[in-house]
């Protein structure tokens, strides 16, 4: 995992150089881009394993860049930004980012997050085919497909993992911290806004009425609970 190919997208030359050295010392292969346009080209041609993306970019900004990347691929995106307000994080997550770190950050924390996001083989892989059927929506966890009213719906890797963990613990309240640590990694726990954004995405994709959810229920100040109707889960 340490020789993973990482693309740093930032307009500050000194920052890119230092990041290249810092990550290079840890065994990562590093490439750079100084604008959104260059980044998109490099992503198409070189297929990096992970993208470290600044928001404040000249031309195509980080959020637009995020949306462009997400339109075609699932490469993990970690946003590095000087803005630390919750709404900036929510905006980035809504645009398709997987993680968000505010500059200046701790190098060890960054490395831990890179590893968590690079984790490809997850403990969510399963041998049996598990399918749940909810009011016109069919979710196949092995094939990682969702069909809502006969239309295929795209779920990102994190959305799938989040949904599966909630389904696996159906009927119980899963605390925020636990969900974050299972889906994002052991170094996470306080990023409740990540869950709010991803749960919102999930509700829009599987709930008949996302503003009055029937399946993914909020346990106020504690976590989330999945309400699995009897007989909805089938194993093949």
């Amino acid at each position, binding site marked *: 995992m340490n020789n993973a190919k990482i693309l740093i997208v930032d307009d*500050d030359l*000194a*920052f890119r150089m*230092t*990041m290249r*050295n*810092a990550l290079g*010392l840890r065994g990562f292969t590093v490439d750079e881009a100084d604008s959104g346009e260059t980044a998109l080209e490099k992503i198409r041609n070189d297929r990096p394993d992970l993208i470290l993306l600044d928001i*404040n970019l000249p031309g195509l900004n980080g959020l637009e860049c995020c949306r462009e990347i997400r339109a075609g691929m699932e490469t993990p995106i970690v946003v*590095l930004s*000087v*803005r*630390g*307000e*919750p*709404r900036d994080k929510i905006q980035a997550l809504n645009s398709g980012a997987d993680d968000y770190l505010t*500059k*200046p*950050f*701790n*190098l*060890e924390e960054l490395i831990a997050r890179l590893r968590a996001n690079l984790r490809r083989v997850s403990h969510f892989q399963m041998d049996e085919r598990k399918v749940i059927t909810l009011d016109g929506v069919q979710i196949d966890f092995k094939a990682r497909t969702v069909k809502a009213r006969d239309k295929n719906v795209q779920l990102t890797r994190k959305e799938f993992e989040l949904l599966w963990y909630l389904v696996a613990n159906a009927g119980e309240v899963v605390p925020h911290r636990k969900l974050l640590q299972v889906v994002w990694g052991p170094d996470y726990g*306080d990023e*409740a*806004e990540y869950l709010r954004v991803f749960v919102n995405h999930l509700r829009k994709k599987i709930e008949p009425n996302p503003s009055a959810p029937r399946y993914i229920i909020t346990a*106020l*100040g*504690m976590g989330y609970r999945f309400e699995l109707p009897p007989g909805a889960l089938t194993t093949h």
Partner: protein
Amino acid sequence: MNARRPRRIGRIVASVGVVVLTGELCRHIQHINQTAVAVALLLVLELIAINVGFVEALASTAAAGAELGYFFVRLPRRPPAGMVEWVAITTFVLVALITIRLSDQARSGWLDAAKRAGEMSLLYKFGLELLPAENTTSMIERGLSAAVNMFAIEGVALRWLPTGEIFRAGPAGPMILEDELRVLNTEKDAEERRSGDFIFVCLKGRNGPLGVLGLCGVKTSQEVLRILCHRLAMSLERAIALEAATEVEAIRRTAELASAVLDSLAHDIKTPLATTTLALACLFSVKDALPNTHTPFLSVIKEELDRMDHVIGEVLHLGHLESGLFSFSREPQVVKALILSTLAEIDGMLEGRSVEIDIPESVPPILAEPRLMKHVLKQLLENAIKYTPQGMPLSISSATSDGMVTIEVADHGPGIPEADRQRIFDKYYRGENSKDRTVGLGLGLAIAKSIVKAHGGQIWVSSNHGCGSVFHLSVPSPGLVGS
């Protein structure tokens, strides 16, 4: 009035002359009967009533009756002889009176309609003059001079209540006494007062009185005057609203500019800070290769970088909170969960101090943005830890009071002197006790106050010198709204 009398006498003479002349003409027509003469005279009388006036037509009717009776009907001198002739002449006079009365009424109606059309056209033009002006003052000046010029008013004066200024227009404007403009009670329903040639009207907007208008030499009808004052009041109220909106827009643009400057500042300061921190982290990872005498310098650089990051973070945070563009969404938060989660974050700072938590189950959730509210709690807890000796407990309690949820953080420190208590939430203020203990600029409690205020709550401190301090914060709860 006196000048009008000779003119009217002239018109009466002329009208009577026309009637007499008509009679004379008829006398020279051979074989003309009495009925034809009566009809001709009636026609002439109707024309006089329509074109000249009722009084003139009345005098002409008398003349026509006399002429018809003497020359054509040949009335006997004494009734009852010739009763038929008397009846005929009386009928003629009665028909003539009814005709001229009806004709006069029609004439008055036409004149009235023409006058109204003229007044409406003037009021419309007056309305055009009151289209938005650059400010309220120029709107007042424009409105008053338009009133004087269009409605032939000799003079107007306005006491403008928002500023107390007096505006005047027209040659007789200065004759309107300031004291008179003060007499009208703007609060009462009576909106108009007359004093000789002067009229004083209270200009009322939808939100209350705007000013007192004094007018001198008004020739328009009462109704036109009422509409004129109403339009003036509405336009002035609109001008005030426009001025306020412009001010709000200016404040918003300033806030936007401040926010943009802060964003740019954050980028320009935090990026080099991030680079330096990163470079230092790389140096730390190879510190074993450095001479022992150099490694303490790395720690100094790290501490100073952390301090700089903390200070910059505080300034930017407060700047965003105060820019007015700061927005966040609030959701119900369980108080106990919020406090426990904050305590978990600062666990390392407690250093053996215990925390007593007293939060009854009955305390409802508060409406808050969790990260911001945790920032406030963290600030209060860090403060409490700083002033509580090791081994002594801190306490956190919560209750409901006056429709709000209150949270109290108490320490066992030296307490806060009265003078510091007044200013402890001010920006950059650092109390005597804290100067050697805090790292920041003295913005922590100012930020906490801004956050609590943005949540619709309050924050304050109570303290007995030598017996510790209690920081209180009250925040709205969705469960208590309206209770």
